[in-house]
């Protein structure tokens, strides 16, 4: 399996995907820093607690990091199996004495490593910018937990994208996974409008279902909470808009997300094992 991981890393690095993503991230950081610097000194924020402003801008930044990480993961993996079968790249590989599940898992790990590095740079970079500008958030265990959860997004999206890539063309797979992603995002965002007891039952049900169908949004909300768990409770929910972390997922949800990812990988391996090439 290690040989497939290595080959996947080489593939991503040589495809200039990382270079393009780095340039986009740099542009994002420049614009973001310019924006939050202006906000830090805007007269309208004078009456607000500094940490509330910091959490707001941090959550907006995290949201776009989340989107960029998802796009990076989906686009880099959408053609991992079917795309390589169609263009003939896998035809000489699959007859080798390596079980197909190892080829699939090797690709997942290879893409996951690069995606995690990308997510770390994006989220780490913006947290650093917010910290420099507002003096918050500081280094804490919550920050580490948030970092791990943010990387976890890559591995969940990666597993689902790989499952789709066994049967769907790269374009169809990309559209399908991003569609699923936005449905999960919608469910999670709706629950931010009136968090707490005022949230209509139907919205709670919808949000819960979308979290279970694609737990990526729940994990993202958990990362949001962990990165600013002390300050976010002091911010009025309406101030955060759709970018809030409510309701904060439980530990059981985190376990579910891990099992979900493992289950999707097992299913993808089974489908690939049965697939005619």
């Amino acid at each position, binding site marked *: 399996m290690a040989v497939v991981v290595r080959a996947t890393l080489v593939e991503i690095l040589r495809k200039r995907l990382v270079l393009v993503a780095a340039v986009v991230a740099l542009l994002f950081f420049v614009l973001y820093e310019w924006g939050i610097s202006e906000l830090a000194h805007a007269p309208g924020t004078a009456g607000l607690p500094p940490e509330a402003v910091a959490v707001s801008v941090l959550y907006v930044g995290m949201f776009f990091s989340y989107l960029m990480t998802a796009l990076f993961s989906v686009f880099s993996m959408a053609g991992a199996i079917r795309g390589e079968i169609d263009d003939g790249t896998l035809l*000489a590989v699959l*007859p080798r004495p390596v079980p197909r599940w190892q080829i699939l898992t090797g690709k997942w790990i290879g893409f996951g490593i690069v995606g995690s590095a990308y997510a770390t740079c994006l989220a780490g970079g913006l947290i650093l910018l917010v910290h420099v500008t507002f003096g918050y958030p500081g280094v804490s265990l919550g920050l580490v937990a948030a970092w791990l959860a943010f990387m976890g997004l890559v591995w969940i999206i990666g597993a689902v994208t790989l499952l789709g890539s066994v049967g769907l063309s790269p374009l169809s797979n990309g559209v399908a996974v991003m569609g699923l992603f936005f449905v999960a995002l919608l469910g999670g965002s709706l629950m931010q409008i009136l968090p707490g007891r005022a949230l209509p039952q139907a919205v709670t049900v919808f949000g819960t279902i979308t979290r279970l169908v694609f737990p990526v949004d729940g994990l993202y909300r958990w990362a949001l909470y962990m990165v600013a768990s002390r300050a976010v409770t002091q911010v009025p929910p309406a101030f955060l808009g759709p970018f809030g972390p409510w309701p904060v997922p439980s530990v059981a949800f985190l376990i579910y997300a891990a099992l979900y990812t493992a289950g999707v990988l097992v299913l993808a391996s089974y489908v690939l094992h049965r697939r005619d090439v």
Partner: protein
Amino acid sequence: MSGASAVHTLSLSKHYGARVAVHDVSVTVRTGEIFGLLGPNGAGKSSFVKMLVGLIRPTAGQARLLGQPLEDPAVREQLGYLPELFRYPAWLSPYEVLNYHRALLKRPAWSRASSDALLDRVGLLGRGAHRIGSFSKGMQQRLGLAVALVGDPRLLFLDEPTSALDPLGRHQVHALLQTLRGEGVTVFLNSHLLADMETFCDRVALLNQGELLHVGAVSAAMRSEPRFHIGVDALPPAVRTALAPWLVPDSVIPTVTGLRITVAVDRPDLPTVHRTLLEQGVAVYEVEPVTTHLEEWFRSMVASDHPAAPAEAD
């Protein structure tokens, strides 16, 4: 099933719903021979090979490679496979591709000298460090051959190995096949280039619409017939009358030097025909036995509503 055979299939079939790709094919490839699989487009040749190398799952039947069941992972270590339509990652070099496949085979990485020795066999010496993205289709096919050989396979499946090659490349592949034959490697050749089949295959199988029509020696398919082409300067009516017992109808064809006629005659009676022509004052330039080439045999077999023949006994 035979343990001495390199490939042995028993009623191997692949159906996609109602569509039949391969149906009930039983065939044996002997160890060390070069075996050709013929058939028109869509006959099921590639599907048959893909079943044997594990890319697609048979719907029914059994197969053994090198005496072991298809599913045995150990068999895969001894196979080489050149797919018909394939591509290698554009961002890698041949050195990297060869070592990638060495690693997939759990073999130690090759030095550049070892890789160069193999690349030399397929005509890619000096290209080992170049990016594959700059390769032509023919160069990719040469690399595909090298990848198929990277594990020193005992059984080699080549699906259209010369389709993208120039004449020099084809010559190199021919030389390579000769060497492999000398090394005792069993080669399963899938090609529409019948001249290749004639030159190298010991035996051929003919597949049509997924069913096996014939298995046999190439020499049998290319048998000499009791017919001869004769080049003459002219064919006056009197001569035509004199040749009537032997002249094949509608066989008189104009050529640069005169005419070519075809006579149906056993070899011992050929001097009689020759003498008849000379006595009539006809100049004879050449006499050539008519041989049925594989292509003619192939056409006649596929065109005729030939019943499926059982595979020949081992």
